[in-house]
């Protein structure tokens, strides 16, 4: 829970309402936001938290103007997906300038169960996908958004998202075919 004593309460007229709505938003979506960002950013825990923070901050600033509670989640996740994509672009530019060795690997934390090696393989396989396919796959097959919700989050048509999903699944199965952890068979 966000500490009310720390959050600025110097505003008047609807400020308390905004603070309450914001606290509820953070409380409900903190974990999922970080997880989604983590998956979109190739398993980088620190970057995922930064991106989630940025998305929450943007949401806070826009919350006073946003009244459609029913679509609040979609609105927030749309912000998050964009933030994640911006971060990826920024990271790619930074890697170009500083060389590939500066590129951040997946979180090497020993707590990153179940298997860091498998996670790294998946991260690399996802990274090889075109951006649209990667986003669609993570949103629908990993985060459980519907195709229609994902289409809204991505700003694409539902048909496009389905096409991305089909291609992404095909590519990932081919890329990760040797991982028995995923295929359920023997490692080749």
């Amino acid at each position: 829970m966000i500490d009310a004593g720390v959050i600025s309460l110097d505003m008047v007229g609807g400020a308390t309402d905004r603070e309450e709505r914001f606290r509820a938003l953070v409380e409900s979506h903190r974990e999922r936001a970080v997880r989604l960002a983590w998956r979109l950013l190739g398993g980088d825990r620190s970057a995922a938290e930064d991106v989630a923070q940025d998305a929450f901050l943007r949401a806070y600033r826009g919350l006073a103007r946003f009244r459609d509670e029913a679509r609040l989640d979609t609105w927030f996740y749309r912000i998050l997906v964009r933030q994640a994509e911006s971060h990826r672009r920024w990271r790619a530019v930074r890697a170009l300038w500083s060389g590939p060795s500066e590129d951040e690997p997946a979180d090497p934390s020993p707590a990153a169960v179940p298997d860091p090696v498998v996670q790294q393989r998946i991260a690399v396989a996802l990274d090889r996908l075109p951006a649209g396919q990667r986003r669609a796959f993570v949103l629908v097959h990993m985060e459980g958004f519907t195709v229609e919700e994902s289409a809204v989050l991505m700003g694409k048509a539902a048909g496009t998202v389905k096409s991305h999903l089909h291609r992404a699944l095909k590519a990932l199965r081919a890329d990760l075919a040797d991982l028995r952890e995923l295929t359920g068979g023997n490692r080749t």
Partner: protein
Amino acid sequence: MNERQRMDLDPEEQAFVARLADHYAPPAMTPARRAAFDRRLATRVARRAPWRVAMPAMAAVAAAALVWLAVPWSHGPTSPETPGIVAAGGSGDTATVFAAYDWFTSTAAVDAADLGEDDVLPEDYQAISEFFL
């Protein structure tokens, strides 16, 4: 029916996707990590956006610019009667600029009956005046 089934994935594909999702997830946030996340977010929320901090300064600069443009420095004198006064937009110091302003207001206050406009304007400005008026 979940989304994977709605996507017409066969059982093998469904299993693959489910395992992928299981394997590719961050560890759950610990209470300490969650608290740190919230603290940092609260601090950032409390901090005013940089553009909001800069807004009063920018407004002050804009107001000063408007005042500067509103005051008709372009009629500023360069004639011998006003020594040491620079023309509009010049690089003179503040005292010089105020001296120019004083000169202008004192000149404008002169009774038109005693002094014609042509007498007030420097010679090189008269042609411009005739063109526009």
